[in-house]
């Protein structure tokens, strides 16, 4: 399979980006506006209209950066922002961000529209108008060199490190070689492997970024005496955090790491990037690491991932707003029992049914089809999860004076 020759039709955005979906986002700016926003989406009955939002009244910088990054995401074509009217988070400013990126955007306050019923009716009309404006989208040819793919793992079992994450690692190597972009995360699951990661740094700056981010994660784990490994992992055969880490990091493949991304930051160039989702030190301990899989998926999408791999061993059913999720398992038993939910069975390689090379080809075929518009299993079922919490995170990597 020559990856350079595979192309599909993508949606062209005025800021020059290429999207693989053409979504309308309905965004609430405080929990008080969430019911109205969700009703607008459910009554609009359009598969590509979906809701996201932030529940807090205070404008937490991390959450705002996430919302802005999702508005600018190439899979998003238009935006409706719904506010209550007295929150810190400003719907008008969010609509401005969308317009600056060349996307049709409207907003309103529920308090000014006369309450729930009128707001929902107005919202449905506005969504219809936005839909009309997306009717004849400008399309453009897109290939793997334009694609950004994210990867994370959740509900891991021993097969994740043997098959599920392994096929993603091989995929990432080939994607990067074809000029594409790959993002992987979970620095708290890289404990014990700092040398292995810094050795792969593409530049000296990247080496410092990786070492500083690792140091931060290790301090966090030491402080709470808790590593990202649990009784269920031990019962399943994992003996140490280093062992679990390696099973997770293997999904990054073997290519040089260009640097560390913070949540909401787009990669500065093609290649492989490490995403840091852990909170930065703050006197209030704002945010926890890994509250759930959808937080990680959202963070990857905020860095511009057109689609995300979720590697699972025990099984998961989630999808996401904004970008398709391809669920991969290394456990053929899990694949069989959750066949309506899981897209890809990497366990074929453990039973000897399929070679590693053939498996990677299969995954490229699936990704090409999804990028061209085919629905993933979670899209077919209507999964549109999102998770935007309060968290304290710096905008850039805080460099530490580390001993490398």
């Amino acid at each position: 399979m020559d990856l350079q020759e595979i192309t599909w039709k993508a949606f062209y955005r005025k800021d020059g980006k290429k999207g693989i979906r053409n979504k309308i986002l309905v965004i609430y700016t405080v929990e008080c506006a969430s019911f109205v926003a969700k009703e607008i989406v459910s009554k609009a009955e359009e598969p590509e209209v979906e809701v996201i939002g932030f529940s807090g009244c205070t404008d937490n910088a991390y959450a705002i950066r996430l919302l802005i990054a999702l508005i600018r995401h190439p899979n998003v074509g238009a935006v409706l922002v719904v506010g209550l009217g007295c929150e810190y988070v400003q719907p008008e400013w969010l609509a401005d961000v969308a317009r600056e990126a060349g996307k049709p955007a409207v907003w309103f306050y529920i308090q000014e529209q006369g309450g729930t019923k009128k707001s929902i009716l107005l919202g449905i009309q506005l969504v219809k108008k936005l839909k009309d404006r997306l009717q004849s989208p400008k399309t453009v040819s897109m290939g793997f060199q334009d694609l950004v793919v994210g990867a994370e793992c959740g509900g891991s079992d021993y097969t994740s490190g043997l098959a599920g994450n392994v096929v993603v690692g091989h995929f990432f190597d080939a994607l990067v070689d074809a000029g594409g972009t790959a993002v992987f995360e979970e620095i708290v699951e890289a404990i014990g492997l700092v040398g292995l990661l810094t050795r792969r740094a593409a530049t000296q700056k990247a080496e410092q970024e990786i070492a500083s981010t690792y140091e931060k994660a290790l301090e966090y784990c030491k402080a709470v005496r808790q590593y990202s490994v649990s009784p269920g992992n031990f019962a399943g055969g994992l003996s140490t955090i280093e062992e679990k880490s390696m099973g997770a990091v293997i999904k990054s493949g073997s290519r040089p790491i260009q640097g560390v991304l913070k949540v909401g930051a787009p990669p500065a160039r093609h290649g492989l990037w490490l995403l840091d989702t852990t909170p930065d030190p703050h006197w209030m301990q704002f945010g926890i690491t890994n509250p759930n899989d959808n937080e990680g998926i959202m963070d990857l999408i905020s860095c511009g991932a057109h689609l995300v791999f979720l590697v699972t061993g025990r099984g998961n059913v989630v999808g996401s707003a904004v970008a398709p999720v391809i669920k991969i398992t290394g456990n053929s038993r899990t694949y069989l029992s959750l066949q309506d939910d899981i897209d890809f069975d990497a366990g074929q390689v453990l039973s000897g049914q399929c070679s590693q090379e053939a498996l990677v080809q299969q995954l490229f075929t699936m990704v090409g089809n999804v990028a061209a518009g085919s629905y993933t299993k979670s899209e077919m079922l209507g999964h549109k999860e999102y998770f935007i919490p309060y968290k304290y995170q710096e905008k850039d990597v805080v460099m530490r004076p580390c001993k490398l």
Partner: protein
Amino acid sequence: MNGKAFQIEKQDNVAIALSELQPGLVNIIGAQCKELEISMRISEGHKFALYDIKAGTAIIKYGVCIGVATRDIVAGTWVHLDCMKSLFDERSSHLDAVTGKPKDIKYE
């Protein structure tokens, strides 16, 4: 015939059971293909030693050190919490080897 076990990298000194294994000959696949006699039952997803491993030396999986042996380990036996420990997480080697449950804390 017993089930199979998977060895990830050539330099690894452990392999992973792909199904529950009984004492006897096991087919190793992956980085090398060979047969090995194991002397105890190994649960699916758990590791066993491919060679004798001396106390204090590294346990190698994925070609990297995933911890050190806390006592001498005989080839063909189970490698887990009771005979190896993390270089980072001092708590994990004190957990129950079979269930993974903490033994260092009492609830009242």
